[in-house]
């Protein structure tokens, strides 16, 4: 039996191509301060901090854990730096949840920050262990998209990826923190230059400097701090290996398993009916469709229909990424925490212009590595 915990405050920076006005700790502090203000507490009320950021090879920053503490205003409190590829931000939240539910801490601040603009050149690095066996993220996503389309053609076609982009960019127009807020039409996506077939330029995400922060509290403190906390109802984490036999990129097992674990914990049997919306880690357009299927919101191959029929639109039966998703703001490891932040705000009824009416349960998803990391977080308006 696990102690109850909830998100009681949330903050994020604007996600911009490049923030030259602030250093990494200053960027992290922006989000942290907003989260604390949002919760209405002071830094000294925080009992511990979990900090997630990219590896050196991602942003050229040396051991940020050594100097991030003062920026977050928590001298003398425990700070844990975590990293799990693209799921880093979500892992920070989940580790903060463990901190609180262990009974050791009442209020924990989870912060995720990435400033990829500061690495001047170079793609994602080699896997030194694999002697060249690793694909870069874009190649991986392109192959994943091809396998997915080929398996389900003509139910899924290239146009469905373009529809996802059009939908999410449209949603982002209502999100003041998004990086890319200009709407595009599906036909613009189709007409954009190919980068790695079948992915075209507009199927791929931007890259942003940005940070996010969540205040997580135990039951007693959560009730005091927030009138409507976003309670953690289900959590699932799955880390598969790299170089796996029988790995199916078009229906990735780590995602399926993470969802199963979270549904079991949250007593959810019919995700589409029992949840009100989902924020998925749509790093590439087709992935939104793949995750929608792997998370159990429709059958394999029905992802295209979900977007084409407007089911996943902001005003549809089951909104997917009302915030605009990663396709509209991609601040590295902070992106995974943003999914949780947006899902929590929806449950708290404070998502702003992109609030979906009447949300009671919302889910956040993230993936990382060579698709081997997956996290699922379910928030509920009730404990």
């Amino acid at each position: 039996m696990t102690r109850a915990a909830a998100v009681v405050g949330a903050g994020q920076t604007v996600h911009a191509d490049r923030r030259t006005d602030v250093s990494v700790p200053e960027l992290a502090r922006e989000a942290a301060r907003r989260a604390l203000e949002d919760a209405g507490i002071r830094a000294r009320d925080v009992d511990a901090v979990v900090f997630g950021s990219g590896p050196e090879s991602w942003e050229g920053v040396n051991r940020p854990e050594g100097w991030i503490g003062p920026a977050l205003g928590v001298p003398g409190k425990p700070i844990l730096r975590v990293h799990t590829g693209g799921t880093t931000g979500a892992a920070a939240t989940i580790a903060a949840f463990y901190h609180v539910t262990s009974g050791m801490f009442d209020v924990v601040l989870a912060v995720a920050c990435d400033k990829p603009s500061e690495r001047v050149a170079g793609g994602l690095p080699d896997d030194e262990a694999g002697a060249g066996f690793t694909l870069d993220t874009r190649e991986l996503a392109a192959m994943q998209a091809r396998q997915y389309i080929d398996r389900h053609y003509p139910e899924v076609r290239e146009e469905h990826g373009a529809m996802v982009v059009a939908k999410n960019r449209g949603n982002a127009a209502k999100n003041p923190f998004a990086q890319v807020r200009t709407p595009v039409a599906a036909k613009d996506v189709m007409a954009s230059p190919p980068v790695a077939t079948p992915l075209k330029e507009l199927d791929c995400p931007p890259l942003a400097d940005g940070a996010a922060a969540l205040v997580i509290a135990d039951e007693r403190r959560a009730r005091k701090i927030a009138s409507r906390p976003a309670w953690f109802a289900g959590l699932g984490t799955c880390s598969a290996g790299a170089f796996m036999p029988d790995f199916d990129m078009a229906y990735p097992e780590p995602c399926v398993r993470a969802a199963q674990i979270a549904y079991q914990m949250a007593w959810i049997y019919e995700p589409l009916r029992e949840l009100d919306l989902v924020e998925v880690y749509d790093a590439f357009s087709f992935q939104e469709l793949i995750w929608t299927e792997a998370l159990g919101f429709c059958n394999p191959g029905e992802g295209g229909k979900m977007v084409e029929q407007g089911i996943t639109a902001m005003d549809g039966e089951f909104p997917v990424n009302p915030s605009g998703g990663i396709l509209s703001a991609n601040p590295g490891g902070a992106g995974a925490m943003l999914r949780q932040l947006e899902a929590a705000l929806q449950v708290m009824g404070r998502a702003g212009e992109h609030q979906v009416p009447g949300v009671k349960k919302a889910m956040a998803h993230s993936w990382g590595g060579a698709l081997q990391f997956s996290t699922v977080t379910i928030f509920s308006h009730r404990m």
Partner: protein
Amino acid sequence: MPGKSGIQSGGSQGVGVEGELSIPYRHAAGRHAERFSREMRDNRRIMGVRCSRCEAVLLPPRPYCGFCFEPATEWVEVADEGELVTFTSVQGDPDAAVFEEPRIRALIMLDGAGVHFPHVLGEVAPDDVSEGMRVKAVWSEDRNGTLSDIKYFRPI
């Protein structure tokens, strides 16, 4: 200290610290990786290992199976040909430099292997590539024990 750095004035944009984090390394790849490398270089053979429990033939070879936590010590030669699992035609590198001609990245299930093998395709135009086609390695004369000992895979 590794790397070098220097303050660059950024005017109203704030100061920039420019530099390079340079980390020379020499990783031990382990004995399984050594044999894999040597067989590629000296014998143009792609060697995997079979897990003693689940019997999957693993690439790259490791002394253990990650799925069973059991030793994987039986060496198995896999073919240098197999079936194309999937591919992508890449127009440029992630930093937006455009290649002279698209590079076709591919995952190949080599005959006898249990894990996809990543490489590039050659002697074929992107439009003529299709999943499921048979491909075979074209070895380089100048080999050093890395995956680039194979120049590319060509359709057969």
